[in-house]
């Protein structure tokens, strides 16, 4: 009979917030209560813990057991409290030495047979434990997160293993996260030279892009190949991206291996599904695409509210959810790739099939994405059906490998400028980066006048032109680069 406190965590956004599982086993009617604003999954821990203790050969105390998850006002959710509660009960009843329980942090779900099951958010817990400098006891199944450098991780297959004290630290050397090369390649795409160029520019400069074309013209095929030309994630980006995936309960191995995420939510996605939310709040598709590509196929078919919710992450690179219990931040810095049909029937402007939509219907459809969101899309490119003859005899053009090299080179150049990412340049930094000479300035003014460009329109034009110039290794943006970008603007864009 006694008390014991075991350190553990609960998730808040993508962060692990430390929580103390205080266990009190005392005289009284045999009960088992968990207090501290736990959700239903936390309440159900009682049954799992009881069965797991019994199955592992420990005594289940026939006494009054109270578990307090402190701090009290913070809502807790999930099944990760099973293990710390079980450890706390064992220590409080003298079945385990109490210094074992107080010298470590524990997270994990218990199975009725006493085995420890993996849970979502392991990477967040691992990061927090590393920061605290305390050993972390958790599920034993091989887990990428646990091979974090500098983390003292103690894998636990079964609860009964605790009889021999804390399990040994993993001696697994940091795994070389080899990821199979993508089977997709831009070399397989016949024709579509302009669209490939647009995607190359978008990948190189981190610009958002919208592809417009009839069904079956190859928009999705092109978008799926975009990740193949993106450079691998940097070490910091790997951790950021893997963290979001881990918290969402997805496999983070690919992100750890440096593969940029490619998320393609269906157009029926809700706001919460797209930008995060729910109870407990989970990251949405936009966050899962952090440091990667968010591909919205059939963009005008998305709910207007869901689409407009993307404006904040496109602007700030993160999503702030405001809930009664507080503000949560999810990182969401992604390149947006949209695909849209030109009209509801999809064949407006396509030579092969007549369009059945009225003029007003076409105009309304093309406006459905909405001005403020279109304002954040730098490149619009038409994707047309390729002539069947061309499909059969063309060699496919540039392949992913050479395009990837170009992208890496442009990104290096942008880094050398020390002015920040090209897609976010503005004001004097943008002008400094572009180094416009007199004739080019004149050309830009003419474009702005004839095309009725707003200040924002000019800024976007110059950003993309800077990337185009970088693709050619040009020090300054010239009128030719501007001319190319003029063609990548949305119809009727101001």
């Amino acid at each position, binding site marked *: 009979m006694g008390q014991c406190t075991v350190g553990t965590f609960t998730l808040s956004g993508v962060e692990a917030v430390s929580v103390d599982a205080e266990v009190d086993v005392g005289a009284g009617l045999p009960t088992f209560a968990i207090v501290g604003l736990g959700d239903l999954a936390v309440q159900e821990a009682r049954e799992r813990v009881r069965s797991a203790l019994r199955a592992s050969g420990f005594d289940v105390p026939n006494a009054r057991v109270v578990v307090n998850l402190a701090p009290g006002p913070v809502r807790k959710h999930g099944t990760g409290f099973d293990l710390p509660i079980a450890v706390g009960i064992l220590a409080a009843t003298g079945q385990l030495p109490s210094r074992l329980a107080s010298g470590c942090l524990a997270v994990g779900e218990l199975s009725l047979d006493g085995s420890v099951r993996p849970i979502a958010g392991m990477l967040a817990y691992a990061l927090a434990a590393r920061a605290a400098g305390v050993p972390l006891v958790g599920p034993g199944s091989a887990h990428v997160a646990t091979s974090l450098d500098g983390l003292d991780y103690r894998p636990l297959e079964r609860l009964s293993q605790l009889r021999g004290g804390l399990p040994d630290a993993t001696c697994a050397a940091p795994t070389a996260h080899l990821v199979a090369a993508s089977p997709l390649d831009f070399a397989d795409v016949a*024709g579509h*030279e*302009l669209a490939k*160029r647009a995607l190359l520019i978008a990948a190189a400069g981190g610009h958002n892009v919208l592809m*417009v074309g009839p069904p079956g013209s190859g928009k999705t095929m092109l978008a799926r190949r975009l990740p193949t030309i993106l450079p691998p994630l940097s070490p910091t980006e790997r951790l950021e991206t893997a963290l979001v995936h881990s918290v969402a309960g997805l496999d983070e191995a690919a992100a750890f291996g440096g593969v940029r995420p490619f998320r393609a939510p269906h157009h029926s996605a809700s706001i919460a599904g797209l930008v995060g939310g729910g109870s407990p709040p989970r990251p949405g598709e936009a966050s899962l695409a952090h440091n990667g590509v968010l591909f919205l196929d059939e963009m005008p078919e998305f709910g207007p509210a869901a689409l407009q919710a993307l404006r904040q992450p496109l602007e700030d690179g993160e999503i702030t959810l405001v809930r009664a219990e507080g503000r949560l931040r999810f990182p969401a810095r992604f390149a947006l790739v949209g695909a849209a049909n*030109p009209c509801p029937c999809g064949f*407006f*402007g396509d030579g092969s099939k007549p369009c059945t939509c009225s003029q007003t219907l*076409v*105009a309304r459809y*093309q406006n459905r994405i909405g001005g403020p969101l279109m304002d954040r899309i730098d490149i619009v490119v*038409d994707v*047309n059906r390729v002539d069947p003859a061309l499909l059969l005899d063309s060699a496919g053009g540039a392949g992913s490998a050479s395009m990837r090299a170009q992208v890496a080179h442009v990104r290096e150049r942008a880094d050398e400028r020390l002015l920040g990412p090209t897609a976010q340049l503005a004001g004097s930094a943008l002008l400094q980066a572009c180094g416009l000479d007199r*004739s080019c300035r*004149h*050309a830009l003014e*003419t*474009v702005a*006048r*004839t*095309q009725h460009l707003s200040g924002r329109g000019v800024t976007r034009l110059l950003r993309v032109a800077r990337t185009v110039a970088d693709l050619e290794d040009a020090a300054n943006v*010239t*009128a*030719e680069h*501007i*001319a*190319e*970008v*003029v*063609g990548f603007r949305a*119809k009727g864009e101001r």
Partner: protein
Amino acid sequence: MSPAPWPGDAPAFEIAIDDPRYPRLLAQIEDAPKMLYGFGDPSVLAPGLAVVGARRATPYGLAAARLFAGWAAAAGYPIISGAAIGCDQAAHGAALEAGGRTVAVLGTGADVAYPSGSGALLTQIASSGCVVSELDWGHPAAKWTFRARNRIIAGLAGALLVLEAGCPSGTFITADRALDAGRDVLVVPGSIFAPECRGPNRLLRQGAVPVTEVSELADALMLSLGPPPNALDASETLYGLKTDDDVLSSLRTNPGRPDDIARALGLDIISAARRIGALEGLGLVRKYPDGRYGPC
């Protein structure tokens, strides 16, 4: 700071009415000046666009002067004005900035920097265009000299663009003289409440041609002065690309997409896209809702 010296070392000229260099259009008006005194290059005294407006111009008038004079100068038409404060100087300045040539007709002797402080501008004008007067060297300013000067501006010009003018005013007189001489009078419309715009709006009522956009000025000048002398050069300086080219003529006859153009003309897709983009930027073609490019 002392004002810039005028005329400095600008080359002077004197042209009599029977001189072959005497401007052809000016000779046709009733009271053509017997002599022209000036500095700079007298060959600039070809039919051009006169830009006239009030000295006390509003920002609206100045902006319109800069826009239209700048465009016309870039297109190669000489810009003629009176070097006065306000619209006149804005027009000269815009013409020089656009790399065009401009003529200042003074109401004093050509070697007198009037208004004072305009020496620097006159020197710049004379270096590529010319500064001219019918008055003998050193003639001082007087009320009548400016009124007489206005008839020379009207006489030299093939078309007259009126910006802001009270009614009556010197500008309005110039417009009257241009009408007498059978010149086209173009007018930038203004607010009905602004006294500065009473002149232009009255001219509009009398049948002058309103100019509200560069393209309208281009059309009007095409009729009264002929095609722009260096349309091709002007666009080359804009983009380093020819606009008068196969891409444009191809799109004019048969609207198409960049890949159509690339295939038809044997270009690679990037240069086709750039040339179409340049044409679009110049307002010569536009993108249709279905994605093809064609004439505006």
